């Protein structure tokens, strides 16, 4: 078998394993909610919408499934996968088990951007919250990147620590800016709305968000998967990676920018959902080990399924009310992770 064929075969096999699981999760996301809908109803809606068949379906049910639940489940999946993969990449690159997608100041910047638009009235009402959040995120990341570069220039050994420290400084600064804007001009309702958004909120998600989030998550995943071997080479640090032939600077720049872009877009669509990017990578490591060629698909799949599940729970746990998804991810995720941690310790040789 030629090398290219082997590679294609690997991809096909991976897709065959992952797609049914993802499809099942999305189907569950479309079925379960305040009103439960049967799976064949969901399938009929899909056939109607995608193939133009005229199967008889209640238009209200069709609207719920097609306009609300499906895009929501798809975006939740894309977002969960992107955050989990970002966590994997940053933990490997920065050699820090506590690294998460927000370690580079992105979530802090997004919230500043969001309050600048919604509360301080930047742009005179012409700008959307997502637009503000996205630009805030990129601004904060730019600040962190420049600070890290200035602080770490010339010493590759300490560079990882410098990036983390720059990220902390950037997060503190932008969080303070957010607090300042809220304290200065927000009323209690606005402040509560922003809090709600910051904890993660998928209720505003529609199809245009799907067309942004899903292709971006796929492309980002491919970039990261392509660098899996390079990330393995970082196991013993940057010098060791360089000695194994990895162009360290280029890999760092490409991966940090790719993950920053993914995170910024996801945060601007759904808010900064915590926990997924920190903990799913560790959970996936317990499942398939630390090798990045298997960890990358495993983390993406686990993250996607986890966040679709968390979204379902957030919609049904309190009848008549939607809980911020970040609350759910932490409430389910923390105990689940505790169990994995304890089990993993017991089975360790």
């Amino acid at each position, binding site marked *: 078998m030629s090398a290219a064929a082997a590679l294609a075969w690997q991809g096909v096999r991976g897709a065959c394993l992952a797609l049914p699981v993802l499809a099942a999760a999305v189907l569950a996301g479309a079925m379960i909610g305040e009103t439960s809908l049967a799976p064949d109803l969901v399938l009929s809606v899909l056939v109607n919408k995608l193939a133009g068949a005229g199967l008889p379906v209640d238009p209200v049910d069709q609207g719920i499934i097609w306009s609300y639940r499906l895009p929501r489940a798809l975006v939740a999946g894309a977002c969960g996968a992107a955050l989990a993969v970002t966590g994997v990449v940053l933990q490997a690159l920065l050699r820090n088990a506590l690294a998460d997608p927000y370690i580079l100041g992105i979530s802090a910047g997004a919230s500043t951007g969001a309050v600048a638009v919604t509360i301080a009235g930047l742009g005179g009402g012409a700008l959307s919250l997502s637009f503000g959040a996205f630009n805030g995120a990129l601004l904060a990341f730019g600040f962190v990147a420049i600070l890290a570069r200035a602080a770490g220039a010339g010493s590759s050994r300490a560079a990882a620590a410098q990036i983390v420290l720059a990220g902390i400084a950037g997060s503190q600064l932008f969080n303070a800016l957010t607090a300042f804007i809220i304290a200065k001009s927000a009323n209690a309702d606005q402040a509560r709305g922003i809090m709600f958004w910051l904890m993660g909120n998928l209720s505003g998600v529609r199809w245009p968000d799907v067309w942004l989030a899903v292709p971006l998550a796929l492309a980002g995943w491919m970039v990261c998967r392509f660098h899996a071997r390079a990330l393995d080479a970082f*196991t013993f640090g940057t*010098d060791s990676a*360089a*000695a194994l*032939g990895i*162009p360290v600077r280029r890999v760092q720049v490409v991966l940090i920018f790719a993950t920053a872009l993914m995170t910024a877009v996801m945060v601007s669509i759904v808010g900064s959902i915590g926990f997924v990017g920190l903990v799913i990578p560790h959970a996936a490591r317990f499942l398939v080990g*630390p*090798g990045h060629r298997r960890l990358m698909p495993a983390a993406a799949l686990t993250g996607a399924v986890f966040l679709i599940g968390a979204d379902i729970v957030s919609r049904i746990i309190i009848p008549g009310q939607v809980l911020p998804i970040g609350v759910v991810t932490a409430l389910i995720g923390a105990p689940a992770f505790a169990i994995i941690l304890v089990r993993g310790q017991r089975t360790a040789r």
Partner: protein
Amino acid sequence: MRIEARSLSFSVRGKALLSDVSLSAQPGETLALVGPNGSGKSTLMRLLAGLARPSQGDVLLAEQPLARLSRREIAQRIAIVEQQADTAERITARSVVELGRTPWLSALRPWSGEDTRQVDKALRTVEMEAFAQREWATLSGGERQRLHIARALAQQPGLLLLDEPTNHLDIHHQLSILNCVRNLKVTAVVALHDLNQALTCDRVAVLSGGRLVASGTPQQALTPDTVSEVFGITARQVRDAGGGAPHLSFHLA
């Protein structure tokens, strides 16, 4: 693969760590690098491996300037075992050695049976086959050191740079690793603290305060006078009754 350093100097923030060091090792030779703590052995190793750029001078690998090769091309020719390299990842012993295959793999050249064979061979060379599935954190210092050496061997380099490879090793493994390195057809540059082990190499270079103070055959470079002066001790050459090769014995001055 021949390696040559041409008047290398290296300084960090105005502080000279190496000044005007020139040396070379012929294909297949083992060159021992000795000198007191802080004399610049590890720094020189990093320059030879292309991990740092010299402030002045050139490194030539098989007559080619190292600066002209890409990272990957260098890694296909040079393997380095650094003095310290540790990880918190829960990685197995075998996957550490598999990292050595990285410079030979790409998207279009995935892992193959040949790679598996090289990894097996390297594990056998350092007598670590039985540990292949053990987790890194559970291994002893010497076992980790042997895995790093196996990783470097799996890289199939033409030049092997070993920074204190016998560190942490028991006497059996010290001798067997050095023996293995000398028997390999690759050129090797080895930083050593045991001067009697340096005496068994093909050539020796003595560093002190970032300068080369002696180099040549072991007998030329490691004279009792040079050793005494560089390390601030009194060294004597002794022969044992069996009539073996002379070795050095030391006392505080």
